[in-house]
């Protein structure tokens, strides 16, 4: 399978990427690791006329200690998160979840900024960033803005990113408490049928593949905050949600999985 024809441009800097986005508008897509976009292009589910390769912007590949957070360049690869000592110390949940994405060859290419921009509700890392209360820094022609992960995702493969914006950095709060990530799938290297991320002792609970975006389980979070047991809080994990149905699971099965996995994750994160 070969993608439909497109023009290929290399951006050497975020500014150049933004200017190319301005030039080509909706015809263009940014290309990072390509491990979500290229398969979609091969299936002709995506047919951009111009690809702007941002993976060569070395300025956007870094992991640094910020003020109360870890600052991660958007082009940082999953394998780099997985093996980084500073991530293991300061945001261990993020490194662990990175190690569960796809398989090692996929993780050699995929980037944190790329997976967030792709906004797949079945992906692991967007849900981890959401549970951790991360912030996404996006740059456009008029400068940078910070977007709370809570407000970033708007629908299937959609986010609040404007057509001429590029994610430059992801900020993950450090010094948070117990965490756990539960990924349920049937085949190695597959997406989660349902996943649950618990961060900061249950202050952040996120759900994978339970709707059109990565979701916060707000009712369960509120229950934890008011002292409910893991089991009682977990029972509320899927409250009000309409999970997708596919070959792997119907809505009732996903709803059940979400409660079971939330209980397990809360217990493992230290919520009694």
């Amino acid at each position: 399978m070969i993608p439909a024809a497109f023009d290929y441009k290399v951006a050497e800097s975020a500014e150049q990427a933004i200017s190319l986005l301005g030039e080509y508008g909706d015809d263009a897509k940014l290309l990072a690791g390509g491990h979500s976009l290229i398969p979609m292009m091969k299936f002709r589910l995506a047919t951009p006329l111009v690809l702007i390769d941002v993976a060569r912007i070395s300025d956007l590949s870094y992991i640094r200690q910020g003020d109360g957070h870890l600052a991660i360049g958007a082009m940082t690869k999953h394998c780099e998160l997985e093996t980084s000592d500073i991530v293991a110390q300061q945001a261990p949940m993020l490194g662990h979840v990175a190690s569960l994405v796809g398989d090692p060859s996929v993780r050699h290419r995929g980037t944190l900024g790329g997976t967030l921009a792709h906004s797949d509700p079945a992906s692991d890392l967007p849900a981890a960033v959401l549970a951790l209360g991360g912030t996404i820094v996006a740059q456009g022609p008029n400068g940078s803005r910070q977007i709370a992960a809570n407000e970033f995702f708007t629908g299937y493969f959609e986010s609040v990113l404007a057509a001429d914006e590029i994610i430059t950095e992801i900020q993950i709060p450090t010094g948070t408490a117990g965490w756990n990530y539960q990924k349920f799938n049937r085949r190695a290297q597959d997406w989660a049928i349902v996943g649950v991320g618990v961060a900061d002792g249950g202050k952040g609970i996120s759900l994978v593949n339970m709707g059109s975006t990565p979701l916060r389980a707000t009712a369960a979070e509120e229950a934890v905050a008011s002292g409910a047991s893991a089991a009682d809080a977990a029972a509320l994990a899927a409250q009000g949600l309409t999970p997708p149905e596919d070959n792997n699971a119907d809505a009732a099965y996903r709803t059940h999985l979400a409660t079971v996995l939330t209980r397990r994750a809360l217990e493992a994160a230290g919520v009694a």
Partner: protein
Amino acid sequence: MDVSMNVNGQSQSHDVEPRTLLVHHIRENVGLTGTNIGCDTSSCGACTVHIDGQSVKSCTVLAVQAADSDITTIEGLAATAQSDGSATGEQNWHPMQEAFQQCHALQCGYCTPGMVMAATSFLKENPNPTEAEVREGLEGNLCRCTGYHNIVKAVLSAAGGA
């Protein structure tokens, strides 16, 4: 557009369409057919090669993305071992190739080039793995003949652990 890369130590320049996949470029333009195409959907790992020493699925990388990189395919693996002095056996192969032969880690052989390339990249990152880590490390490579038992044995043997 003109794309140059180093493949198995040789500089290669070709005029390629941007949509050309790296695996097609390697097989059809460079002329090295040891890298197989299996699923074509980044699931099976038959097309695994190294870009700058790291395993990738070359059906999910555009040739233009690999411009100016060092590519190693199964055909060039033995030479990397010969240059760093780790080549072994009568054939002077890479230790992983020797281990696959010694452990009979293949049946039809279709997945083998990708398995060997994924396994060598894995051992670089984890030189002394447990059996469970080997199985996790090869989760992106499928064998449909007979299972993974001898493949895992070969990787452990190449790591010096069996």
